[in-house]
């Protein structure tokens, strides 16, 4: 009879020694290394932004204005105009791009996917993701700003153009994951295609669609280049997104960070931290909202 306490059991149930066991170890180590490689720079960025930006953050900095000239020290004025600018410009861009992008994905997946138009839209979306953001800004500058002047809305158009392909592609992938048998179940009850899409397909994919839209919004909120010549930059709050020059956190980071003045640099770090915080809050809020929609999926 084998005695467990003796230390050498009769059967060895461990992974056999040799190459197979080593392979397992190598792969595990490689994965941990990859994770570290991905996390460490991210951690550094966050740590630096918080370390250099946190000291300037105050209610006055977040809401006050106007944005002071670069030469003034930290503690004067505030980034309020840029916070408001970012919220309204990115918000309007999301309002334009997310519904359009989701509808585009619905078209590709549920309606014309196999047709020429469906494939063309998918292909164009892929091409559009590769367009540099400054080119998108110049595009809007040419077709809009030259005719109607700078405005927050012009910036929103440029950001929406950048977000659109990302929203289309991510929503498309999510809709593809909805099992065909759910659609069939709905069709078998006499639902029309529109009904199936609205009551079954979109609710089943909503979590992923929201994630994709958020990534696009977060990305757009940080875009600088297309805003530079679409909204110009001002120091006072412009609550009217539809007309007049405006400002945003990203352009303020750009305008302040390349200055030699300590106050301007502090304001740039503060603006960077504010932008990260806004994105973070937005992500959490969206997760809470979608948790309600997806509460039956688990």
């Amino acid at each position: 009879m084998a005695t467990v306490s003796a230390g050498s059991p009769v059967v060895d149930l461990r992974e056999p020694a040799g190459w197979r066991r080593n392979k397992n170890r190598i792969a595990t180590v490689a994965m941990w290394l990859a994770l570290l490689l991905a996390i460490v720079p991210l951690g550094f960025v966050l740590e630096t932004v918080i370390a250099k930006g946190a000291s300037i953050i105050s209610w006055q900095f977040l809401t006050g204005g106007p944005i002071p000239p670069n030469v003034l020290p930290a503690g004067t004025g505030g980034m309020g105009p840029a916070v408001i600018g970012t919220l309204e410009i990115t918000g309007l861009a999301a309002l334009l791009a997310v519904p359009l992008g989701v509808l585009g994905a619905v078209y590709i997946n549920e309606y014309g996917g196999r047709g020429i138009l469906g494939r063309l839209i998918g292909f164009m979306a892929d091409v559009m993701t590769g367009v540099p953001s400054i080119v998108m800004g110049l595009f809007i500058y040419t077709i809009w700003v030259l005719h109607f002047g700078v405005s927050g809305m012009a910036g929103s158009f440029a950001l929406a153009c950048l977000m659109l392909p990302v929203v289309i592609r991510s929503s498309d992938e999510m809709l593809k994951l909805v099992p065909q048998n759910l659609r069939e179940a709905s069709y078998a009850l006499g639902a029309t295609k529109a009904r199936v899409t609205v009551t079954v397909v979109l609710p089943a994919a909503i979590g992923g669609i929201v994630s994709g839209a958020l990534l696009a919004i977060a990305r757009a909120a940080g875009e600088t280049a297309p805003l530079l010549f679409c909204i110009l930059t001002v120091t006072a709050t412009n609550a009217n997104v539809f007309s007049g020059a405006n400002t945003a956190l990203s352009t303020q980071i750009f305008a302040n960070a390349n200055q030699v003045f300590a106050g301007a640099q502090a304001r740039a770090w503060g603006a960077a931290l504010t932008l990260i915080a806004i994105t973070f809050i937005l992500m959490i809020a969206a997760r809470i909202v979608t948790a309600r929609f997806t509460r039956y999926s688990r």
Partner: protein
Amino acid sequence: MEESEQQVIQHLAVPERVSDTPQTTGESIFDMRDVSVYYGSFRAVTGVSLSIHENEITAFIGPSGCGKTTVLRTLNRMNDLIPSARVEGDISYRGAGLYDNGVSATAVRRRIGMVFQKPNPFPKSIYDNVAYGPRINGERNKAVLHEIVERSLRQAALWDEVKDRLSKSALGLSGGQAQRLCIARTLAVEPDVVLMDEPCSALDPIATGKIEDLMQEIKSQFTIVIVTHNMQQATRVSDRTAFYSVLRDEKTDVRTGTLVEYDQTANIFENPRDSRTQAYVTGRMG
């Protein structure tokens, strides 16, 4: 179950045909004349002609790839969802051509519901699953919806198990419960016909037994067509059985499904006319 077994034994003892032509107990509700179904250029099913009768349970049996499910899906135009699928021949439902111009597949499916092989509840609450059909058909009155949900769940023999958790996710149900929920969901729109595509293939014998019992319960109100791989199930539940098989072209090796024999269930299993049916039901083939 016991009763039908006795019936089988009785018939085995008296090996003569119940009747040569199927007696019409119910009115004929589907008439298929020379129906072929293509997927692209592939002819999946060739030349099926049969009639399905009201308030009966009709079973489709046969080996894999013989086209039973394909034929079933022509009956409520589910094949329309497969872009390459094409139906030839005539299928009439209560005298109206199912594939005539102007016929709405949606209107067809409201009358002819379907239960699928794999239970496919929506990721919604149990209540919302059952109320889904009535809601998309315009029912908004809460009291009426309540009544429909309870009645449908009772018909599907699920009410007692779920009545205290109607607001919980349907994805938390066991396989057998989920399938009965899908049946309840189908019954909630008060269809005329219920098509079942191997509804018990993913279920254990107890859950299967429950579903067979409920089929017997509801057949007075609905006409049922069931595809099954389980021949015992066909003998237990069905009034008529259609045996399908695969035809293979020797030269080209092209296979197509076809209807071999259609008769009262007792005849198919005890006294088949066709040697292929004989071979299949006795387990020598397929």
